């Protein structure tokens, strides 16, 4: 059984102000594939994962993880409590 891989492509896509089609064109896939990736219905190849990370200017580890990413609200709350 393959391990579930979580990602936050939609978060970075929203931050970059990209539509699915624009992101799909940038990494050379069908927009539907971006949708499947965002919902966790498809696990990308290493090549596609690296292309996506490169497009957002981050490392692959920041985009994909074996553990669920914390909610943005929690991250901001923790950051607020720390300061």
């Amino acid at each position, binding site marked *: 059984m393959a391990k579930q891989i979580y990602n936050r492509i939609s978060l970075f896509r929203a931050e970059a102000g990209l*539509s699915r089609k624009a992101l799909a064109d940038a990494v050379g896939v069908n*927009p*539907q594939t971006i949708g499947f990736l965002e919902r966790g*219905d498809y696990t990308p*190849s290493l090549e596609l994962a690296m292309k996506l990370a490169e497009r957002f200017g981050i490392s692959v580890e920041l985009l994909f993880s074996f553990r669920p990413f914390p909610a943005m609200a929690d991250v901001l709350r923790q950051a607020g409590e720390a300061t």
Partner: protein
Amino acid sequence: MTYRGNPLLEKLDRIAEYTGVPKLARRTAQDAAIPLRVMPLLPLTLAIVGLFVQAHAPAGGWIVVMGAWISAMPLGLTGPMRPPPGGVRDERERALVRTGHLAGLGAVALLAIGGCFLMGILGALAMVGYARVWLPQGPQDWIAIGFFLLVVQTTVAVLVASWMIPRGLADADEDDQPARLTRRADRRFRGGREG
């Protein structure tokens, strides 16, 4: 929904959505794969019926199976395995096509191997009078079987590829549009606003 605010047009819009035509048009416009989860069963059923007819009335059964094959052919060209307009499939689409065809070929291999053993065993039993079995003899019987296997390959490939496409994203048109309220949420929203 296109016509917001006008109750009559909204209702007509909803009726149009029920027909599935706008959904199909949206998917076609988005170049998205169209899953065919039930339609391939029709030519498959027709092929089984044709083979059954061929066993009992050798004159016309093979034509029915050939008809099933002709009706199955467009499924591969229009369904989930259709080539994208640009002609280049991405890695997910390639995997989808590969898995679909492998499943189709696997089904054909299983049928062919199983059929050979079954006909061999039942044929031997029939020779000593313990069983009655139809065995292909004439050229039309073999043609019918050939077309039948082609139908199985095509339909199983399309079915498997279709079921591999997750349902949630089949209508992936929320990309640049606001999320649409469900009918229940819509009613609740309207009720709350009016009340």
